[in-house]
């Protein structure tokens, strides 16, 4: 049931992402200042936005889990956080490459978005160890959801605080997103953003479908072979239904 609609979604994702990259390389103009390297912007910024959206969405799913007690919401929240962490690593790496190319240093503390991202990444990096160190399944799910709610609320506050600090000390020398973009760059950016969002949705759905298939196979084997024949489930950070 989780695999339903996965194929059209995957095809749309592939098309939109290919289209976005085609636009990036063949249509969007080179930046007057930075030249070719500015094109990393079309990967870096959409990835960042989608990762943050994923973290906040995981927090909302965790609220659902705490309210209803339905373990499926915990699984959804887990998968969203898991994917967002992967994207966050991508954001940090592309951000560092961009910083090196345009400011000559691998790390720039003046760039509040990158710094906030590092803090958020460090916080979410504790999510898996936290889950892993709680043995009781039901408690693991509940505590993980509390973490996801707390961290989801922390994301925007952290961004506001760090941005405020930088704006206060250093005048902002450039704007990463938004109003300053000329039209064709903006369109390319929006297509890239849509592609990245679709990619996140596809991977999220795919991982959920895969996890459900695993659970069902295990349940069937249990019914066929009996409880004793099956190897006991290893302790893991991932939720099981």
């Amino acid at each position: 049931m989780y695999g339903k609609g996965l194929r059209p979604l995957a095809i749309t994702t592939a098309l939109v992402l290919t289209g976005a990259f085609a636009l990036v390389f063949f249509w969007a103009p080179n930046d007057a200042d930075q030249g070719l390297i500015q094109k990393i912007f079309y990967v870096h910024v959409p990835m960042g936005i989608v990762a943050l959206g994923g973290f906040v969405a995981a927090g909302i799913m965790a609220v659902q889990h705490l309210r209803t007690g339905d373990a499926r919401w915990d699984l959804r929240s887990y998968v969203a956080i898991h994917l967002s962490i992967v994207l966050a690593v991508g954001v940090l790496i592309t951000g560092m490459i961009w910083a090196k190319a345009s400011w000559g240093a691998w790390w720039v503390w003046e760039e509040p978005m990158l710094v906030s991202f590092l803090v958020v990444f460090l916080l979410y990096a504790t999510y898996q160890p936290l889950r892993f160190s709680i043995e009781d399944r039901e408690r693991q799910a509940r505590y993980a959801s509390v973490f996801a709610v707390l961290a989801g609320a922390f994301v925007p506050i952290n961004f506001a605080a760090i941005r405020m600090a930088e704006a206060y000390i250093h005048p902002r020398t450039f704007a990463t997103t938004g109003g300053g973009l000329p039209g064709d760059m903006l369109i390319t950016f929006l297509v890239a953003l849509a592609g990245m969002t679709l990619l996140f949705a596809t991977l999220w759905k795919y991982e959920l479908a895969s996890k459900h298939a695993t659970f069902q196979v295990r349940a069937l084997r249990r019914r066929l072979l009996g409880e004793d024949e099956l190897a006991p489930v290893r302790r893991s950070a991932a939720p099981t239904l």
Partner: protein
Amino acid sequence: MRHAVGALLRKDLALELRTRESIPAMALFSLTTFVIFHFGLDRRSVEGDLASGVLWVTLLFAAILGVNRLFVAEAEQGGFDGFLLAPVDRTALFVAKALALLAFLLCVEVVAVPAFAVLLLGPAPGPALPGLVAVLLLADVGICVIGTLVAAIAIRTRARDLIVPLLALPLLVPVVLAAAQATAPLFAQGGAEALPLRWIATLALYDGIFGAIAFAVFDFLLED
């Protein structure tokens, strides 16, 4: 609710007065850290943003020590079960523990801040004092809210003393940032400058938001 909070708080303070487990360790840790900073930075005195950074890093790490021990008695001696049997609002435990942690922190600061002024601080601390007290109070509330919540999460895990700093430090980045920014002008070389109000507002906002969230989610950490 108020009765329950009062009783729990009295219990925690009485326990601390008898065992003296947290506060002396936290205070001693702060003093040692100042000495470490003296040698690590190779400075006889610090001022401005360096001074405020040294003070806040020290206080934060001292607070982590207290957070690590906050629920140990409850977990090891069945205090959680006893509390869950009592017909009181469960959030009372959160409020009482946060207030206890706040009391611990204030006691530590009564020792650590004068020691900092004597050992490391360059400019005279006198004129900075009212502003400093305000920043300390607001930042302590934020540390206590997050600290209590993190302590309650970590106490039921197998790697308690690893999970506490890993969770609490990133969550407290905005508090340290705002507190350090607010204190830096107070320790300026040429005497205390005005307290930057925007950072006071940031701290208050942080306390409010995370206080409300902690209040809402704490129940789920006790259900069994």
